[in-house]
């Protein structure tokens, strides 16, 4: 097989707690970052709750893994698509999400936003353009 870089998309569709899918998806993303592929993440359906800011899991005695998302930029994972309709259906806006940034070494380490809100239509187009889609 060719060693060309592939386009990887991780689909995050579930709430962060209640099931382990979100956390174990993030584990794949972190390991996968070492393979130098073209990686994007998408958050849709209840998956948008994964990157809501101010998460506090003390009362449910679960590990709060949400700070890990802020480290994604250091792993060169800089494209986080959030589906607009999924936010709206849940009464959320981008202001409810964590302010996730990455530093662009090609522009003197300028801080840039990792999160991009896209429509359901645009997300379908993004999915269509991928080589590999991991669905969690």
């Amino acid at each position, binding site marked *: *097989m060719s060693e060309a870089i592939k386009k990887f998309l991780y689909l995050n569709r579930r709430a962060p707690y209640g099931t382990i*899918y979100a956390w*174990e998806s993030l584990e794949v993303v972190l390991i996968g970052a070492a393979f130098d*592929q073209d990686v994007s993440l998408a958050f849709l359906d209840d998956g948008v709750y994964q990157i809501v800011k101010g998460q506090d899991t003390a009362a449910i005695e679960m590990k709060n893994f949400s700070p890990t998302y802020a480290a994604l930029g250091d792993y060169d994972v800089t494209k986080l698509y959030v589906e607009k309709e999924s936010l709206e259906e849940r009464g959320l806006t981008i202001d409810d999400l964590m302010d996730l940034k990455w530093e662009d070494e090609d522009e003197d380490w300028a801080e840039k936003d990792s999160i991009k809100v896209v429509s359901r239509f645009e997300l379908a187009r993004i999915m269509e353009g991928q080589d590999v889609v991991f669905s*969690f």
Partner: protein
Amino acid sequence: MKFAIQINEGPYQHQASDSAYLFTKTALEKGHEIFRVFFYHDGVNNGTRLTTPPQDDRHVVNRWAELGEKYDLDLVVCVAAAQRRGIVDDGEAERNGKDATNIHPRFRISGLGQLVEAAIQSERLMVFGD
């Protein structure tokens, strides 16, 4: 075509492993290649040799193992997911001080890099689960 298979759900509770098995078996019979079958999340429970279903039901673990034997399949159980759920081989038992193992000998435990590599090396990644 060269496929990678990912299974995200455990046996019996969920049909994902059955669907993946039937897909894999049919693909192989039609001459396609299966680069690797990777068991993740509760899917790691498909790799325990201690499974004992009723006699009149399919044996999900054994039939994966038999298919693996017939086609020399690489059946990989994710180590991080396995540790959480108590799926243990000799190496894991020694590392973590466990007094038993339960992995089926036709399966092996390895890292998530094996899943990513399979996705890179294959033409299609098929994910089975909800």
